[in-house]
């Protein structure tokens, strides 16, 4: 347990409906919680989106983030996976200067970082790298002296290790009133 704010990672399953992102963004804004990273994408279940949210929060605030997310009708399931064994990935596309004299050097760095070359032109390369934020930052730093033209990254996505599944489909099919979920975390 800690009462100092640390970086927290939440995953949230939400109905894919208009305005969901606005509701979630509004909740964080209204409670003055600063979003470090927020990614949204589709899932293997039609009609559901999955969010990975990173914020700075202490244990109490983290519990309240979860409880407040649950108050939104579109939110089906929330989990704080900060302390769970999990895989966290960011994907970045980096456009870097590379002419005949420097191209070999860039490609060598790509190999070290296991990045892929996805576009080649006379004066530059577009590189694709996946990994943790640290790894991407490290790659960016070594490329910088060569001339980074532009970069884009997805923000972090996360999934827990193992075969445990969120009970999403059960809720959608059965539609019970979820008496059993979430209380324990919220009420200590």
């Amino acid at each position: 347990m800690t009462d100092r704010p640390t970086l927290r990672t939440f995953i949230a399953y939400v109905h894919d409906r208009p305005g969901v992102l606005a509701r979630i963004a509004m909740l964080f804004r209204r409670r003055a919680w600063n979003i470090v990273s927020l990614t949204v994408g589709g899932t293997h279940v039609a009609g559901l989106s999955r969010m990975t949210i990173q914020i700075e929060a202490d244990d109490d605030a983290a519990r309240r983030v979860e409880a407040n997310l649950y108050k939104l009708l579109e939110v089906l399931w929330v989990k704080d996976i900060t302390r769970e064994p999990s895989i966290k990935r960011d994907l970045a596309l980096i456009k870097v200067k590379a002419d005949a004299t420097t191209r070999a050097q860039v490609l060598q760095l790509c190999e070290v970082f296991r990045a892929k070359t996805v576009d080649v032109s006379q004066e530059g390369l577009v590189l694709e790298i996946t990994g943790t934020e640290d790894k991407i930052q490290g790659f960016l730093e070594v490329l910088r002296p060569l001339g980074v033209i532009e970069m884009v990254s997805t923000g972090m996505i996360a999934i827990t290790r193992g075969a445990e599944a969120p009970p999403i489909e059960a809720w959608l099919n059965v539609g019970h009133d979820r008496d059993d979920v979430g209380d324990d975390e919220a009420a200590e």
Partner: protein
Amino acid sequence: MAREEHADPAAPALRARRTGAQILWEVLRQEGVEVCFGYPGGAIMPAYDALLGYPEIKHVLVRHEQGGAHMADGYARASGKVGVCIGTSGPGATNLVTGIATAMLDSVPMVAITGQVSSKLIGSDAFQEVDIAGITLPITKHNYLVTRAEDLAQTLREAFYVARSGRPGPVLVDITKDAQQASIDYVPHTRPVRLPGYRPKHALHEEQLAKAALMIAEAHRPLILAGHGIVKSEATRALLAFCEKTGIPVASTLLGLGGFPASHPLALGMMGMHGEAWVNHAIQESDLLIALGMRFDDRVTGNLKTYAVKAKKIHVEIDPAEINKNVKVDLGIVGDVREALQALLPRVEPKARKPWSARIHELRGDSAVRDIQNLPDTGHLYAAHVIHDLWRLTEGKALVVSDVGQHQMWEAQYYRHDYARKLITSGGLGTMGFSLPAAVGAKFAKPGEEVWVIVGDGGFQMTACELATCAQEGIKVNVAIINNGFLGMVRQWQEFFYDGRYSATPMKSPDFVKLADAHGLVGLRVTKRDEIAAAVAKARATEGTVVIDFRVEQEDSVYPMVPAGADLHDMIRRPSPLVEKADDP
């Protein structure tokens, strides 16, 4: 998931061609709506036209949509049912905003229906177009934009279900004009609403109840903090049983007043910024606070760092997001407060705590000598006199709707509420202008009750236009204006904290007696204490709404007072010649 699947296949005989506008009223009728408060306009006209076909639903024409929202709010608080208000698009919708926020902060079940420009025009900055769903995102429990008649019935049923279940709150349904106009085959939906992402109910956990019982058994100076949740979950009897078995005294929040009878020997009265001194001291000296259906608002706690530091805390609350929000608690129990009290009752034991009772009794005695009721008569008319006399004359049985400011605190101190749902006031948002329209709504909910509005001269003028609604509807509420010629609470803060610099607080008002007269209503004026009883008797005997202008002492202050952010025990007390003389060596 197709919405149509909710239609009951067993009822094909009920299938009929209906417009969206008709479906709106069909669902309202199905939800048991008897009365709604609204104001027509372009984008809601189809609904108003269809209303003529549903005479069993009473519509009250308000004078401003804010009043309509407060009426729906007052109706909901007095009845426990969902209140309904209606406005058109654009300004009609934005005028509802203050009323919706008021309901949100006090967890009042309300459905607000707004017209919206046709779906083809949305996003074009059309005439009277405003994104009311966007505007009300942070002040509604949930909201909807409906653009198809096919979605209307299911959405409205969800709206009522969400508004009334769990921790109640306002839900807004914005309906485009074309969705109101379209005709579809309609079959009433009768299946229960099913919302996979919504969980209003929380089961109680055995181990938490056992832990609570143990904490209570071990406590020497326990105190119950009873909030609005007691009223909302109809937990008065459960609380009485719990207190009488355990002998634990009860302090109330402003909105909790009446949830536990004020005349009960274990009732302490109101806590917080203008709470009774003995209550605040008792909280600070307590070793166990049992918070029931309240949320540790800053007006209740004062400085959080010094708040009840000696006390362990149990927090029973229906909204998990409230646990540990402001005050860290030792045990959070998420659930309905009535169910929690009923579950705890067999687990707790009677225990005599004589030193604690004696201490509270001692704290009470100190306050009595500072009470304005016990101070020598100066010939001035004080608000406390008016409210105390009103309590006596109505035998404490009136349904009182107070506004916001000094009079609201005096009401809380001097009108001793023995019954739940007999005090309606804007606690969380502190909305001036709330009282008159909320009283209209309360009167529609409880036509047999004697309804009194207690309001300041400032707040009254914010929604005084609703006197015309009272006159048109022929309803009777009694309006007691506590008229001190100032925005009294701000003036008091200026006196205490801004060197008495009265910036923008002196207020010149119209002649309220003539204002009542202009509406065809009776107006009375009282300037001396011995005139109170006759005026109250006249008001009670008069048919229709009566306005009484009580000209009270201009620069009186509410005591005790915990300055904002100060320690709860650090109160400014009423200066008393009795106390000062006694302190003199």
